[in-house]
């Protein structure tokens, strides 16, 4: 190839490449972001709900209907211990309340276009497959699944998805707050650098008086070593229930933990029971002069009141305070310090 021919080839490729690049920059879809990866939840908010699990009778921050509240109060944590319920998938939005990693990947059509983004589940939640091909939403009578039916669209660098066709499931794990199969979730996923912010807006015509909004942060694990757990094994968790046919529950008005948040944290009953008015600043006017914090962390507030919990299962005890931390205090930062001081 002569030098002129080489120059022309380089010039031609340069024009093509720059033009193609500019074209990409001009198309809104080009704003999409690579979401593929494994993410760990950054549990710097709602630690209790996401880590060890909510206190029973703690519906704070929830806008429940009377029906939703009544249903939640029938719940006992023995219920998911039944064999047939141990591996039941939870709500598509429950990953916002779980302490485990999630994976995100994309699937392609035969022409190489992104057909769907998938938020990978584990044994307690189904995959959420967000279709990007504009397919129509199925009939309302179509099958409802753990992951539901989701379609997505890019809004700048945010992937916005709309989920319907979900199964009846709990919104928060471990405390019985219900969602119906008419629930819908609008989800916004924004990744910038290693941080992925996910906002979910859940609506439910039966159990929520207004949308339940949660915004969380996840951090990319570049090693991808935190895979989600796929296998679920059942075990006899409550031997006394085996073969009895009993379904653990509380009768209406008989839940002994209904006042737990009141007697433990002095939280007003209507706040503990999840009334929407308690979510907004003006509710504080009702509290002023009435609410008094517990005198101090103590065995009255078992488990998680006292200090930063160093990591799951290994809470760090706080000095001069008596905490029911499961005997792990010596393993926490203060425990280690006390040990080294001896």
């Amino acid at each position: 190839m002569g030098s002129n021919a080489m120059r022309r080839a380089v010039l031609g490729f340069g024009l093509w490449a720059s033009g193609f690049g500019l074209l990409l920059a001009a198309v809104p879809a080009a704003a999409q972001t690579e979401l593929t990866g494994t993410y760990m939840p950054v549990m710097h908010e709602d630690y209790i709900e996401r880590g060890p699990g909510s206190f029973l009778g703690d519906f704070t921050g929830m806008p429940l209907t009377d029906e939703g509240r009544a249903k939640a109060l029938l719940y006992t944590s023995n219920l998911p211990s039944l064999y047939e319920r141990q591996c039941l998938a939870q709500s598509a939005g429950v990953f916002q309340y779980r302490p485990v990693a999630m994976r995100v990947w994309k699937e392609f059509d035969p022409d190489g276009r992104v057909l769907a983004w998938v938020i990978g589940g584990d044994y307690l939640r189904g995959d959420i497959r967000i279709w990007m091909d504009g397919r129509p939403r199925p009939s309302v009578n179509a099958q409802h699944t753990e992951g539901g039916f989701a379609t997505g669209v890019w809004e700048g660098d945010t992937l916005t998805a709309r989920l319907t066709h979900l199964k009846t499931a709990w919104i928060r794990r471990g405390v019985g707050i219900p969602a119906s199969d008419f629930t819908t979730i609008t989800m916004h996923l924004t990744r910038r650098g290693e941080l992925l912010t996910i906002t979910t807006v859940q609506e439910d015509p039966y159990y929520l008086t207004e949308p339940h909004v949660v915004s969380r942060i996840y951090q990319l694990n570049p090693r991808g070593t935190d895979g989600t757990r796929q296998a679920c094994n059942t075990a006899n968790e409550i031997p006394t229930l085996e073969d009895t046919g009993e379904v653990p529950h509380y009768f209406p008005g008989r839940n002994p933990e209904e006042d737990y948040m009141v007697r433990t944290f002095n939280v007003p009953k209507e706040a503990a029971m999840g009334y929407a008015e308690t979510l907004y600043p003006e509710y504080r006017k009702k509290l002023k002069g009435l609410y008094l914090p517990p005198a101090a962390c103590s065995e009255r507030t078992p488990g998680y009141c006292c200090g930063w919990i160093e990591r799951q299962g290994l809470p760090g005890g706080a000095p001069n305070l008596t905490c029911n931390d499961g005997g792990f205090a010596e393993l926490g930062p203060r425990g280690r310090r006390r040990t080294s001081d001896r």
Partner: protein
Amino acid sequence: MRRNRCTWLIVAAALALPSSAVAQTQGRGGAAPPATPRQAAPVDLAGQWVAVISEDWRWRMITPSKGDFPSIPLNLKAQELAEAWDPAKDEAAGEQCKAYGAPGVMRGPTRLRITWLDDSTLKLETDYGMQTRLFRFGAASTPAGPRTWQGVSRAEWVVTGGGRGGRRFGYLRTVTTNLRPGYLRKNGVPYSASTVVTEQWDVHAQPNGSRYLVITNIVDDPVYLQSPWITALHFTAEQDGNKWDPTPCDARF
């Protein structure tokens, strides 16, 4: 050969046209670039927003007990300070606003009122504690003076797509420094003067027309935190200012 070259040029020109339109909307050149940050805004943050306290209710809506501070990656020094929290001492020192500095107030039960102070400064007011934050774009940054509860905030728009006469997408990024030491939470959880707060402000519209302001909030304090404290906060838009209710700082409630 001449025809080939002409073809390349026509293709290149055609491809370049829409991109220059984008460049204009992004303020990167073109015939009429936005003159001010106010004009260049890819997202409208102005208006009144109310915090939806659906997370950490017990630590945000009410004042928790002394020593009750899960979720925040505090180091030992910070834990000891938090356990020595004495609101009476703060009141006596005239420091009732320690929990209302930029790293703390945004997680409070507050309404936000966001307006343009001028073409290059966004003003954010809170009714909770009656605080004012100023986000200054570009060269209009304020020289650092005495440390204040709200510090000094630099701001920039980040455009992420859209344009060409259609909806534009982007977010506000702010970095706040020069903070007066205060509390991350009402019950005396400390942050130091070395704290840097980085925030990304996104608005998400819903199918029913409602809008949520979601702030990805990174509080980095090398003195009291083991790692940056990273949270996401959400507010919903209000149609009017009827519920705006300025209340002064309170060291206890």
